[in-house]
């Protein structure tokens, strides 16, 4: 790499600091870099939070509500309301290979839930043991979710949403304690781990009280489910799963599988895709603002390089008269531009990372919901690569174009330049 050695040698000999002007340019690049680092880091944090939040309700799940027929079929009129029983899920489990997991869900609003003298109005849900995994309701340490034995023996046990627990118990331990649900005593077996939930269909999970489906049916005499929660083996199989549900349930309840009104379906896979794209859009927008800010710094570098080239035109002429190839003149100037950009970039990245870390630390110290939803700004590998590539491109272009002009003229003209 003799050429590179020569270029760096020449750079060390010909580069001179331009004092204040150079300091200002470095500051402009540092400012632009700081802007893009912060914006991209916030974008990244937001994106991660969105994706975590959209998964909060459950990953890859589909929620199915019974609807009503809009076509007459097999002798039945249109406009017939459908109602599903928990047993329908056994049929689905047996005949739909794409199904990974499913739970029926029964919902009852406005129940009295009390402990001691404190009484709350809460939503009670009867669910199957698979529900916890489907709906991303993870028990805190020391507790557990509803299980098969609870279901089989119709136990009077309850899994509390974390806010319900806080309202009833405060900071005290709830597991093993008794709460009254509509005057019936239940034992608390677990409390949900706090989570970010960005979508819901019956209120936030943190406010609910979950009990076994069998217990729910016995106590409240319900025969029909509110909805079914299902998940395909892989997210790609979700459309097939939905189609099979129409077929299987359609065969059972005699409706046309082509009749889309018979099932109301919330496909969270689809929703998550939209959310992901939205977050990506926001990230791109923020990145663009940052890039434009950085570009202004780049114009500063190009400006100073134009001045440098003008200032040194005669010297460039002398070098060419002594036999410098164009690259020997161009190289050191581009290196100079890259050096200014790199210096500014390093300062900007340093300040950006420091600020991001400070903010992340501040978030752990306060419990502001706005701060929480903003997500922890994250200086990721992707952000670093974006910034470095942008800085490199700006440094190169800002050095290359002004310098190219200098070597394009005849040495004799450069030597005459005053």
């Amino acid at each position: 790499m003799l050429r590179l050695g020569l270029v760096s040698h020449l750079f060390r000999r010909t580069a001179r600091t331009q004092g204040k002007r150079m300091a200002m340019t470095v500051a402009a690049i540092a400012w632009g870099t700081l802007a893009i680092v912060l914006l991209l880091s916030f974008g990244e944090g937001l994106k991660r939070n969105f994706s975590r939040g959209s998964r909060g309700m459950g990953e890859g799940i589909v929620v199915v509500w019974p609807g009503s027929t809009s076509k007459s079929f097999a002798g039945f009129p249109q406009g017939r309301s459908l109602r599903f029983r928990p047993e329908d899920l056994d049929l689905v489990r047996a005949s739909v290979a794409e199904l990974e997991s499913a739970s029926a869900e029964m919902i009852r609003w406005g129940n009295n839930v009390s402990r001691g003298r404190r009484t709350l109005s809460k939503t009670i849900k009867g669910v199957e043991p698979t529900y916890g995994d489907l709906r991303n309701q993870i028990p805190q340490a020391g507790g557990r979710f509803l299980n098969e034995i609870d279901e089989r023996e119709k136990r009077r046990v309850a899994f509390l949403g974390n806010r319900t627990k806080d309202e009833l118990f405060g900071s005290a331990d709830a597991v093993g304690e008794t709460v009254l649900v509509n005057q019936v005593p239940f034992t608390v077996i677990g409390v949900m781990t706090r989570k970010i939930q960005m979508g819901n269909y019956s209120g936030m999970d943190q406010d609910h009280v979950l009990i076994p489906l069998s217990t729910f049916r016995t106590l409240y005499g319900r025969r029909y489910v509110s909805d079914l929660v299902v998940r395909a083996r892989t997210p790609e199989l979700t459309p097939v799963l939905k189609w099979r549900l129409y077929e299987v349930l359609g065969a059972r309840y005699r409706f046309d599988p082509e009749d889309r009104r018979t099932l109301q379906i919330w496909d969270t896979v689809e929703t998550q895709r939209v959310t992901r794209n939205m977050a990506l859009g926001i990230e791109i927008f923020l990145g663009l603002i940052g890039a434009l800010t950085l570009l202004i710094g780049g114009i500063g570098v190009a400006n100073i390089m134009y001045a440098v080239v003008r200032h040194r035109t005669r010297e460039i002429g002398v070098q060419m008269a002594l036999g410098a190839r164009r690259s020997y003149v161009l190289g050191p100037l581009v290196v100079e531009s890259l050096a200014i950009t790199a210096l500014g970039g390093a300062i900007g990245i340093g300040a950006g990372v420091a600020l991001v870390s400070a903010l992340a630390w501040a978030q752990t110290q306060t419990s502001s919901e706005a701060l929480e939803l903003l997500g922890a700004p994250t200086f990721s590998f992707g952000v670093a690569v974006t910034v470095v590539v942008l800085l490199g491109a700006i440094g190169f272009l800002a050095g290359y174009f002004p310098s190219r002009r200098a070597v394009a003229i005849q040495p004799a003209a450069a030597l005459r330049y005053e």
Partner: protein
Amino acid sequence: MALFNGRNGKRHAEPDAPVIAMRGVRKVYDTGAVQVEALKGIDLTVGAGDFVAIVGPSGSGKSTLLNLIGCLDTPSGGSYRLLGEEVEGLGPDRLAEIRNRRVGFVFQSFNLLPQITAWENVELPLLFKGVPRRERQERVEQLFAQVGLSDRMRHRPTELSGGQMQRVAIARALACDPTLVLADEPTGNLDSASGKDVLHLFEELGEQGRTMLVITHDMAVAARTRRVVRIADGEIVEDRAVAA
């Protein structure tokens, strides 16, 4: 013809060709509105070891001619062969190589790079040529000894007198052992004592058999050469040998 057999990368040069062979060389400056014909058909042949003075009033095209000879500029018409190689159509990097290895320049205003030392100035052409470090070191020291400035090598140009600067510039011009040395008013910015020193150096070079072209106003300088070429209005009006 020892001068042609050095390590100067003269792969394209023909040993028996004249150093400079110009036929009908023209140079037109296009300033947009007007076209100025600075040189109107120059025929000039300079053989190896010749020491030529180019004289003429200012604006006559002396410097333009010197720039063309030194490949600092390209002719608008005619043929120019340097050491037998046609210059027309050569790329900028090949021209840079020719300037580096075959031509040494001495300017009226010295044109030393101010931010580096005298030593580093002289080293530049060797760097461009790609000479290894140790060899560069020896060569630069030898050059400073030749121009009698061994005690001033580490100074910056601003710390040197005019005569010293010009001697550094001459050392730099000789760095790659060029066949041809071109000087544009080398004594124009010097007092008479320094001018004499520089002139003496040129005489020595002439005696060593190096081909030299010197632009000058000074008839005392011209008198020391072997041949005087007079230019007026872009044409050669006189070309005579100087009586020894």
